[in-house]
C-alpha cells in the first residue's frame, strides 16, 4: 500500500479564481488515485472544524483539485489557507461516480462553483464520444470561473446576467433555447439548488433525463447518519435516499426540491453565529 508521507493533505497550490472563489490542489494519494468523475471528498479544515463535502474537480497523479466558494465559516477558513498549509482531515473519494457513457448529444450546464463540478464530468463524457454542448454562467464575466477550460467541448455558451461575456441571460435562458432548437439525449446540471431546480423543470417539459449533483449537509459521508437524506419522488409516493451513498447525482426531475432546499437552511442561525465569530477573529478579508 502507499506510504503515508508527512505531506498528506498538503495544499500544493492555491489560486483565486474570482472574488470569494478559490482553487486548491491537494496532495492525497488515497483520494486522487481512484477518484472517478462525480465523486466527492469530505474535508475537516481544522481540529475543531466541521466535516464538509466538496466535489472533486480534477485529479492529477497524487493530487486532487477542488474549487471552493466562501459562504460560511468552514469555506472562508478553507479559502484563507495558503500553499503549503495542511488540511486536518480529508476522506474520500466518496459517493457514486457519474454515469459516464455514450449517449449521443449531451447538454452540460454549470453555475457558480458547479462549473468546477461539471468540468471532469464533461471531460469524461467527451472522451467516450459524446457530442457536448456546455453552458456555464455567472453574474459577470469576472465572476465566471474556468471559462477557458472547456475548449474540449463542441460548443461553449458563456452566460452572464449583465451580458459582459457577450451572451446575456441566465444558464436557464440558454438551456431553454437549446432544448427548443436542438435534440438532446441527456443533460447534466450542477450549480446552486435553485438553478438545478429550474433546470430540472425545463428538462421535465422536454421529457429529458437530467443529472444534478446535490450538495446536502453531511457528516460522515458513508451512509451512517442519514443527515443528507433527500426525498426522491417516484411514480407512487416518495423514497428517502442518502445523498452520500445513493448519490450525489440524481435525476433532478424526481428530487423534491422544496424540502431539499429547506433542509439546506437547517442550521442558518448557527452558521451565521459561526461566520460572524470567525470574521471577528480574522478581521481583514480584502484577500477574499
Amino acid at each position, binding site marked *: 500500500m502507499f506510504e503515508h508521507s508527512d505531506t498528506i493533505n498538503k495544499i500544493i497550490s492555491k489560486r483565486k479564481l474570482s472574488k470569494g472563489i478559490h482553487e486548491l490542489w491537494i496532495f492525497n494519494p488515497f483520494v486522487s488515485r481512484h477518484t472517478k468523475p462525480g465523486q466527492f471528498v469530505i474535508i475537516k479544515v481544522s481540529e475543531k472544524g466541521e466535516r464538509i463535502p466538496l466535489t472533486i474537480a480534477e485529479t492529477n497523479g497524487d493530487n486532487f483539485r477542488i474549487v471552493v466558494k466562501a459562504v460560511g465559516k468552514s469555506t472562508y477558513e478553507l479559502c484563507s489557507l495558503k500553499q503549503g498549509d495542511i488540511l486536518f482531515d480529508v*476522506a474520500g473519494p466518496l459517493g457514486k461516480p457519474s454515469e459516464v457513457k455514450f449517449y449521443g448529444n449531451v447538454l452540460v450546464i454549470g453555475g457558480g462553483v458547479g462549473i468546477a463540478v461539471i468540468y471532469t464530468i464533461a471531460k469524461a463524457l467527451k472522451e467516450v464520444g459524446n457530442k457536448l454542448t456546455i453552458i456555464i454562467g455567472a453574474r459577470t464575466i469576472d465572476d465566471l470561473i474556468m471559462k477557458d477550460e472547456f475548449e474540449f467541448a463542441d460548443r461553449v455558451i458563456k452566460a452572464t446576467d449583465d451580458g459582459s461575456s457577450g451572451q446575456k441571460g441566465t444558464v436557464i435562458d440558454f438551456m431553454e433555447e437549446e432544448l427548443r432548437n436542438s435534440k438532446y439525449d441527456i443533460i447534466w446540471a450542477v450549480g446552486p439548488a435553485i438553478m438545478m431546480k429550474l433546470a430540472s423543470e425545463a428538462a421535465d417539459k422536454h421529457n429529458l433525463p437530467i443529472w444534478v449533483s446535490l450538495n446536502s449537509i453531511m457528516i460522515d459521508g458513508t451512509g451512517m447518519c442519514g443527515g443528507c437524506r433527500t426525498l426522491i419522488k417516484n411514480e407512487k409516493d416518495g423514497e428517502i435516499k442518502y445523498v452520500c451513498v445513493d448519490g450525489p447525482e440524481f435525476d433532478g426531475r424526481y428530487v423534491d426540491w422544496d424540502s431539499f432546499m429547506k433542509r439546506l437552511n437547517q442550521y442558518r442561525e448557527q452558521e451565521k453565529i459561526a461566520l460572524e465569530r470567525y470574521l471577528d477573529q480574522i478581521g481583514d478579508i480584502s484577500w477574499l
Partner: protein
Amino acid sequence: MAVRDRIEVLEQPAEQRKNNFNEVALGYNYDMAKEEAKRCLQCKVPTCISGCPVGIDIPGFIREIVKENLEGSFKILKSYNYLPAICGRVCPQEVQCEGACVLSKVGKPINIGALERFVADWASENNVQFENTEYSKEIIIKNNKKRVAIIGSGPAGLTVASELGKRGYQIDIYEALHEFGGVLVYGIPEFRLPKSIVKKEIFDLEKLGVNFLKNIPVGYAIPVHEILEDYDAVFVGVGAGTPKFMGIPGSELNGVYSANEFLTRVNLMRAYKFPEYDTPIRVGKKAVVVGGGNTAMDAARSALRLGADVTIVYRRTEAEMPARKAEIHHAKEEGIKILTLATPVKYVGDENGNLIAIECVRMELGEPDESGRRRPVFVNGSNFIIEADTVIEAIGTEANKFLLSQFPDLKTNKYGYIITNEYGQTSIPKVFAGGDIVTGSATVILAMGAGKSAAQGIQKFLED
C-alpha cells in the same frame, strides 16, 4: 452468614450532571474497590467467567486487588481484553459476568464492572505499561511476515488488532472517519464513556505496533481487489451503522434526526461545544426521542444536557424496554419523561420546513411476536399531538452497505449481514468478519467476543 451489600459507585448527582457532559459514574476509590473485591467468594468453579464474552479471569483480577497488587490485576485484565477501561464502563455486566455471579442469586453480585474500571483507570493514571510478554520472540518474528488488514476501527476491529498484534502480525487498521473507535467515539456519549479513555486504550494498541490509518474509505480510496491482493488476511468489522427511519410523513423536516446523526454530531463532532467547535446541532426547547433501547437513552440524556425538555416515546411498556435498567433509571433521575404505549404517526412542520409537533397514536399490547414480546397494536382513533422542536428516532440500525456494495463476492443473508462460520470466516476464505455487520446491532462486548473468535480463526488460517 449474611452476604454484605454491594458497594455502590460514586455518581455525579442528577441535578448537577444534567447540566454537563462529564462522566456520570465516578467509580470507586481504592478503599471502596478493596472492600468490594473482598466480597468475592473466589469460587472454585467461577460462573462469572462463563458469563464474559471474552472470558476474562475475573476471580484472578479481583484477587489481586485484595492483595493490593493492582499492577498484577491490570496484567490479568489486559491479557484477556485490551480495552478494560471501556468494558468496565459500557458492558451490560448485569446480564453477563455479574448476572452469572453466584451472589446474584441473593441480589448482591460483585460489582465486576466497577472493579475492572477501577484497575484500568489506576493503571492509566499511574502510567503503568502492559508488557507484551505472553509470546516468545520466535513466534513474533515468524508471525511478523504476515499482513492483516482490518476494515473498521470499532470494538470488533480493535480486538482483532490486539489479539493478532500481541502475536506479532503486521496489522493495518483502516477507518473511514477521522477518529478511531467506531461506535465508541461516534455513538456512546462522553458522560458514559469519556473520549480520552478511548484514545488511551487505542494508544496502547499503537504501542503494540498496530498501524492505524484514518480517513480511508476502503472500497473507494483503495479498491477491494487491492486489499485482497496486498494482505494475507482481511477482517471486516464495519458495524451496522445505517440508521432506520420510521418513514412516516414529515421525515424530511428540519429537526427530525436519526439517533446516529444526533449522537455523531454531539460525540464525534463535539457539537455540544458549538461554537468553539464548528459543527452545529439544534435541539430547541422540546425534544422527543422515539425508542426504548440504550441508544434512545443516550440520545435523550444528550438532548437534556443541551437544554431541552425531553420525553421518550416508546410503543411498548417500560418492562419491555431493551435499554439497561441502570440507564433508564439514570434518565428518569435526570428528569426525562417516558411516555409508553404510544408511537408517532406523522411529523408536523411550519412553512419553513421546521418540525413543530408530532402526531402520535396510543398503542396496546396484543399477541406475542417472534421476539416473544407482546406486539404493540394501534388503538384506533386515539391520535394526539405533542409539541416538539426536535425528534430523534432511535429505532435501530441496519447493515452498512457502504463497503459491502463494493464487495459483491462477500455472501450476506437476507438482512444484508455477512455470513460467517463460528470463527468469523466468510465465503471468501481469507476474509473474516465480526461484530454488528455479522450479528446485527448488538453490544460492544459481543463485538469484542466476535473479534476474539475471528482472531483465532485468522491465526489458524495463516498457520495452515
